[in-house]
């Protein structure tokens, strides 16, 4: 069966690994993001790894006027349409504290931008009666912490959106996988202090593809983050508010 994936935020480390893993299954990939030149290199790489189609489309989470055109491009492909959302931005909390207007961009990149895109795509997926949306949320969205609570709030919003979208698409034969990665070895985390149990982007991509195949709803990757977050979620608020983790 003909499968096509659109990958939003295709220049990120995790998205690149996911695009390659999808390419190796023979599906088509549409690489969406801002750095068109960089994505062109990834597109040939995907083609040589076996992608039936690998094309670059310009996508900016902050420019919703371009979304309809991208969905129209997807509709040209026959068969199953899928989307994987890797976009998001995480300015250091200190910068946000100094300039609260950064909140708008963070929420647009990590939540409302991709949500508006998926909102346009959902009816198409419903009409075709299938397909999967992979949404990358974050363990940071499971509980607000002093270190990155704006980013965490945006990702929490996105996770709740994905939960609702799952409820909607399931009725039409589609599916939504919410992915909550722990620490991943990406350019975003390179050199950050306090990283432990770091996973490679390839491992995350493998976990995501497996979750898609098995129609999992919410996955943590690597899996043990589910237990770490289970503990963190259950720390009573009167203790948690005094902690710095």
């Amino acid at each position, binding site marked *: 069966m003909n499968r096509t994936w659109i990958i939003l935020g295709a220049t990120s480390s995790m998205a690149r690994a996911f695009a390659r893993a999808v390419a190796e299954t023979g599906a088509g990939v549409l690489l969406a993001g801002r*750095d068109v030149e960089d994505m062109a290199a990834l597109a*040939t790489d995907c083609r*040589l*790894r076996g992608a039936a189609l690998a094309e670059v489309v310009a996508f900016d989470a902050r420019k919703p006027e371009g979304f309809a055109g991208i969905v129209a491009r997807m509709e040209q492909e026959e068969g199953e349409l899928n989307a994987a959302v890797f976009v998001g931005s995480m300015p250091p909390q200190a910068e946000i504290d100094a300039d609260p207007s950064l909140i708008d961009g963070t929420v647009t990149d990590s939540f409302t931008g991709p949500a508006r895109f998926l909102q346009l795509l959902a009816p198409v997926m419903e009409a075709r009666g299938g397909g999967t949306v992979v949404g990358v949320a974050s363990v940071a969205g499971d509980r607000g912490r002093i270190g990155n609570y704006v980013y965490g709030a945006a990702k929490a919003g996105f996770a709740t959106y994905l939960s609702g979208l799952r409820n909607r698409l399931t009725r039409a034969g589609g599916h939504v996988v919410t992915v909550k990665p722990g620490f991943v070895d990406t*350019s975003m985390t390179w*050199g*950050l202090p306090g990283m432990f149990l770091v996973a490679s982007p390839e491992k995350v991509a493998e976990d995501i593809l497996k979750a898609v195949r098995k129609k999992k709803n919410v996955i943590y990757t690597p899996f043990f983050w589910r237990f770490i977050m289970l503990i963190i979620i259950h720390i009573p608020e009167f203790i948690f508010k005094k902690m710095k983790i």
Partner: protein
Amino acid sequence: MLWKSADYTGWGRVLTATGEVARPERQATLAAALDDALAPAMGMRRSYGDAALNDGGRAIDMTRLDRMLDFDPETGILTVEAGARVGEIAAAFGPKGWLPAVMPGTGFATVGGCIGQDVHGKNHHHAGSFCEHVTAITLRTAKGIVEVTPEKNAALFRATAGGLGQTGVILKAKMRLTPCKGDVMVVTERRMTDWDDFIAHLDMSQATYTVGWIDATAKGAALGRGILEEGETGSGLMPTKIKRRKVPLDAPNFALSSPIVRMFNNAYYRRVPEKGRTVVRPISDFFFPLDKIHDWNRLYGKRGFHQFQCVVPLDQAPALREMLAEIAGSGLASPLAVLKRMGPGRAGYLSFPMEGYTLAVDFPNRAAARELIKHMQARAAEVGGRIYFAKDSLARAEEIPAMYPELDLWRKEVAKADPDGALQTDIVRRLKLRGAK
């Protein structure tokens, strides 16, 4: 952040470095970092010693710039970023009937690293060295970006091939792939009863791919016994998903003590029936046997290990036999030991290969082993042989000019490409490769 302070080591885990490391994921990020200041590049750090180390300085980790950029099925020429791994190229192209023309013993080696060491493979006697199949290198020198080809700027190409990254940061390369029947190997394994038997078979072998495992603990009449593997590509069905294992912890030192190694080698030798056998194996299994165990260097424990590898001219086979006898007599060797006949193919001034026999033996890092390796290095030099920069961490500067007669030609090109010495690495300083300074 772009730069982070890191401690890192070579594959042998004996030599270490501390310094700032950047790992760009986009060409634009790399370009910006290099505009700031030229720094040596490193790949997967599969060189055993200090070829990929820059203690106290900066280094660029190229492993995330690993995309395949173009392939022309007419000519078989593949363009890749320098961080692309040979094993991934083989995995992507093997099923389509193409393989890198030369593949080193680990698929984790990057194309940039393969160029910097002008590596060889199990087909060296036919195909020559890695860089003989490289048709162009995009190099970031002190003067900017240069496209280097064997025709356009032959001297710079010869200084870059096997040039330990000293002419510039390798950004991209064009390499010729070679047609293959499919992605499985048909391998014939035969016992070699002693040294003379082994050499005679290596001399006779017509196979495309040849490699010999040698029991570096066998003495007396059994000296030089081992297993000769001859392989050809084939097509067929074979489970391609190979189970990868990890080494969970550093092994204790007794794991490689002499009686255990002797026992292991004996069993390994007898694993192949007396009359030999032919088996079908996945391609990665034949070319990269140790890659299945992800971090096998931990098997040598915290102290790390060394590999001695030399090549000696064809007529010096008896001298190599004497060296093996000394190694066997010492009881210090690990099971990993390889004997191979090399052809004359080499692409650079500092390329390792020469027509002759190459012996590689791993040793746990012990004082006695270090002394033995130094002694072997001197012996190799005496008989007109040379040691391999990808493996070395013990050679002395004064031994190198005799082993590498084209060293001065290399120095001249390197001085032009990197006049400030910004690309120097630990091996270059230790062996004074760039001259007295």
